[in-house]
């Protein structure tokens, strides 16, 4: 440990954010910029009979209006999907086009039918109302299970039963069926992991700027991965020369997954800019964000978990219908499959597992990765099942977990753990997280209090012991699983002549604090002050091709790439230092920002070496000048953080209102660079996971209208809804990356949701209401109804 790693260094980016000096896409104003407003379908499913744009075109200040017809002969089919999953029979998944503007048939509320470009956003918005679209409204379907039934309205005509693909993973179904059959006890649960809406604080925005002189394109966009957007835009959507295209993701106000994907608006503003010869800016408003940002979750699941008489898990069988929405978003197919099915081993030694997923189109907004992406769905399933099994078998839920935990392995002395569902865990030690959490909660006291309670309330405790896979991912592995991209990361460490260091990372920070954490790593490894390090990200013109930030990968993958470049810098620096010190490079030690000849006080400072690298008068023969190295890091494996979360809730019997009283989280995210930032990630993640359990959830009616598409109706968790979190950690380093880090961005969200739901179920059982499930979000009415329907 050096001066910075492991310390809660204050975030260097916060000065900019807290003083209003952040530069978000919508803050950028280009010369001659125009403003776009998009005309969107008010229906979930309808034929477009006609579009009359004449009144809008005539409005003063309108520059241009485009509709789907303008793309008819352009060869532009729409935005592609970045992950291919095949049907069980080997057929390629259905991949219907996702046009930039719809010409014939709208497929979800908010589908884009026209774009109006004007001198101001107000004029654009007014003129958008003048576009007269005549629709023939058709029946729609929003529920994935219903959509997969014969006779359901079709989203895409050439996609029978709306099924995009079916998919299976794990042991043969016959083995799993037999093991379930032979079990002493089987816990069965049918449940919905409801659709949630990401709600990043900054709505999406994009500016397209085509400069005819030089034939250059610049896209400013609120994206988590600018290079990926550039690749998709150039190679798959608009067929542009990649070297002429620059994509900039400046400050981005939160993503939670929803800003990973390549959205139609990004291609639209570029295309429109070329048509009109001026920059075009589009900024989503909040209402638009609710219906066009990709949503998360939305699984309808049935699961059976078998146990022997002793409480050991014997088998797990899972059938899920996953709602994809109307179109395939960039990584949508991966979420219910390789990011969900592969996590169903959890922390347990379950000997046989089979998961069967049917991915279905519906007349709703696209669903894709949302904080946790697949792993929260897997964790929710496992942790609900095991707590329910404990209630049913009258066993202690903590004991039941200890009984089934995979024994500790460090991934060095002991091999990584091979699961039944295609993964090899890197390192893990699961007893300590749960033990620690039990100590923190005072478990024995709680049970005594619970049985003694007599005040019109019920209290309950719920557990969740999770594992997740992040640091996504070894390119060859994900390629074999269908990814149409690599998942390495790039880093360039450019030492300036004076010894100051600029680091160019392909990771993208949109709230995570990379400018601080990465700088801590660089400063410590190079033995220089933090202030001497600048982290540059988000601009495809300055940064080497990188893959961006999602799946808690930035430090594990992006940080490792930086370490590789630092190693190269120090190796070359040692040669220069050796030359200047007239010593052998092998005889030098590097520490505290200088090279020292071992056993002497002869040394030379980093800044002298860097200056020499750029003023190579007295220089090693044959060595190139300069001190500037790029690296690409492709991880050997995923990383596997884990943890134990415990919730304590109180239910008001008269109303059913749940109050979360305590929340304990013990997470193991490997080594920690900046504890404050990790705590912040855990806190935010917990709030989101608890939000799903108690407050959030998209509600579509049968006509595909989103009923709660505003903050007056869609309930985000707020500070006063939450207790002060009690968090702690254990540290099991990742054995396969140089920093030993695992990733902390999603852990809070992944672990917390089932803990809260389990606590409510536990409270209900303690009051004699032996219900298996209360739908999320667990509104007062739902909990109250559960108490009415089952007075056991």
């Amino acid at each position: 440990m050096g001066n910075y790693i492991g310390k809660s260094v204050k975030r260097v980016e916060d000065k900019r954010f807290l003083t209003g000096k952040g530069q978000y896409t919508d803050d950028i104003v280009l010369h001659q910029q125009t403003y776009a407003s998009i005309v969107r379908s008010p229906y979930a499913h309808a034929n477009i009979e006609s579009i009359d744009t004449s009144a809008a075109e005539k409005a003063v200040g309108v520059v241009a209006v485009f509709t789907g017809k303008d793309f008819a002969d352009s060869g532009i089919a729409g935005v592609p999907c970045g992950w291919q999953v095949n049907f069980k029979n080997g057929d390629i998944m259905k991949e219907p086009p996702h046009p930039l503007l719809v010409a014939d048939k709208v497929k979800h509320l908010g589908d884009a039918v026209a774009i109006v470009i004007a001198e101001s956003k107000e004029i654009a918005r007014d003129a958008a109302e003048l576009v007269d679209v005549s629709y023939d409204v058709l029946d729609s379907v929003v529920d994935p299970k219903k959509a997969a039934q014969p006779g359901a309205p079709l989203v895409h005509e050439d996609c029978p039963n709306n099924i995009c693909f079916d998919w299976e993973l794990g042991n043969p179904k016959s083995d799993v069926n037999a093991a379930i059959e032979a079990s002493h006890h089987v816990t069965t649960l049918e449940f919905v992991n409801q659709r949630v809406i990401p709600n990043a604080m900054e709505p999406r925005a994009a500016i397209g700027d085509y400069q005819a002189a030089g034939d250059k394109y610049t896209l400013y966009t609120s994206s988590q991965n600018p290079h990926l957007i550039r690749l998709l835009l150039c190679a798959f959507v608009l067929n542009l020369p990649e070297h002429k295209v620059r994509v900039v993701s400046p400050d981005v106000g939160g993503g939670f997954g929803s800003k990973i994907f390549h959205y139609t608006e990004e291609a639209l503003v570029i295309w429109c800019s070329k048509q009109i010869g001026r920059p075009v800016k589009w900024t989503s408003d909040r209402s638009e964000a609710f219906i066009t940002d990709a949503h998360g979750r939305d699984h309808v699941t049935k699961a059976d978990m078998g146990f022997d008489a002793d409480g050991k898990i014997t088998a797990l069988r899972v059938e899920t219908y996953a709602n994809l929405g109307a179109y395939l978003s960039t990584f949508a197919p991966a979420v219910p499959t390789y990011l969900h099915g592969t996590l169903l081993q959890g922390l347990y030694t379950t000997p046989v597992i089979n998961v069967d997923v049917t991915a279905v189109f519906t007349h709703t907004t696209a669903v894709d990765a949302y904080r946790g992406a697949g792993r929260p769905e897997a964790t929710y399933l496992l942790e609900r099942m095991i707590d329910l099994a404990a209630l049913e078998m009258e066993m202690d839920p903590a004991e039941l977990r200890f009984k089934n935990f995979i024994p500790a392995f460090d991934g060095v002395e002991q091999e990584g753990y091979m699961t039944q569902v295609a993964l090899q865990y890197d390192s893990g030690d699961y007893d300590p997280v749960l033990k620690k959490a039990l100590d923190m909660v005072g478990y024995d006291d709680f049970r005594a209090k619970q049985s003694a309670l007599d005040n019109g309330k019920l209290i309950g405790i719920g557990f969740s012991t999770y594992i997740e896979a992040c640091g996504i991912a070894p390119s060859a592995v994900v390629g074999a699983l269908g990814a149409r991209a690599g998942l390495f990361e790039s880093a360039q460490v450019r030492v300036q002549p004076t010894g100051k260091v600029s680091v160019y990372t392909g990771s993208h920070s949109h709230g995570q604090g990379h400018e601080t954490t990465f700088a801590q790593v660089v400063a410590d490894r190079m033995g220089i002050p933090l202030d001497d390090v600048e982290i540059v990200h988000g601009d495809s013109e300055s940064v080497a091709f990188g893959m961006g930030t999602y799946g808690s990968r930035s430090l594990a993958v992006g940080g490792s790439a930086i370490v590789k470049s630092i190693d190269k810098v120090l190796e070359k620096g040692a040669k220069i230092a050796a030359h200047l010190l007239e010593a052998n490079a092998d005889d030098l030690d590097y520490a505290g920002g200088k090279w020292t000849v071992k056993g002497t006080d002869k040394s030379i400072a980093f800044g002298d070496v860097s200056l020499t690298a750029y003023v190579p008068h007295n220089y090693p023969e044959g060595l190139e000048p300069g001190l500037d190295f790029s690296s690409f890091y492709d991880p050997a494996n995923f990383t596997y953080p884990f943890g134990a979360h415990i919730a304590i809730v109180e239910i008001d019997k008269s109303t059913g209102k749940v109050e979360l009283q305590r929340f304990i989280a013990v997470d193991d995210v490997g080594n920690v660079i900046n504890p404050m930032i990790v705590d912040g990630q855990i806190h935010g993640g917990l709030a989101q996971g608890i939000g799903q359990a108690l407050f959030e959830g998209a509600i579509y009616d049968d006509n595909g209208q989103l009923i709660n598409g505003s903050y007056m109706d869609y309930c985000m968790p707020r500070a006063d809804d939450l207790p002060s979190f009690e968090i702690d950690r254990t540290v099991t380093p990742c054995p396969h990356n140089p920093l030993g880090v695992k990733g902390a961005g999603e852990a809070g969200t992944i672990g917390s949701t089932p803990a809260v739901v389990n606590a409510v179920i536990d409270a209900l059982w303690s009051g004699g209401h032996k219900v298996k499930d209360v739908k999320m979000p667990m509104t007062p009415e739902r909990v109250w109804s559960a108490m009415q329907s089952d007075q056991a």
Partner: protein
Amino acid sequence: MIPSKFQYKRAESVSDALSMMSDDAKLLAGGHSLLPAMKLRLNQPDTLIDISRIEELKSIKDEGDHIVIGAAATHHDIAHSNLVKGACSMIASGAGQIGDIQVRNAGTIGGSLAHADPAADWPALVIAAEATIRVQGQGGPRDIPAASFFTGFYETALADDEIITEIHIPKLPAGSSSTYVKFVQPASRFAIVGCAVVKNAAEGEVGNIKVAVTGVSEMAYRAHGVEDELMGQVVSDESIDRAAARATDHVDVLSDHYASEKYRKHIAQVYVRKALETLK
């Protein structure tokens, strides 16, 4: 989230505002109901007449047996007024339960009453307090009793060319008490059920009790059934139970995705009971 084009005019006085009014104009007070509707283009007035800076509309005054709250007084000002707390405490505590701090700093009592949201807090408060709402039009002022001010879903007895100027709230006699309890819609924090109760009586015995309920039906209402059960009764668990059971007598109970008709009815009873219990 961009409203259509409108003209903004600032009124310096009530008569100034009255002279600016026209069919396509709307009064702007705190803007916390009107502006969201305009941003969603559900409401597209040509002109906004800002009355939020008219001093005479912002005062809270003592007029002997009653207090006078100016229509443009903010929820926050009312919640923190000692005069209001002393005259009828639930008016202050109810104002303090509206929305969040930003809403309370901008939103006004007059705007809320004129808007007549079925889930708003003020309607129950003014009905239970037996307040009088003074409005002013071209023809001069008129007084409307709170009980007859609300006429339906977002509808009131206010004429198009009238401005609410004052809300007159009778001071409670010594020995009386009042309370407002609210079960909130978690996203907006409006009332799923809000129950205001005023008890004009010595301890134990119930002489004169007024109960008003908001959030439950298309407009706030006086729960006469509840009052009848308690009239002249000693307040006891049994009488409260009987009274609470009549919380939704003769009203059509609303249903939405936060609270079905059945649940809302149940919560109305729970909250009427809760309110009555605090006055026991």
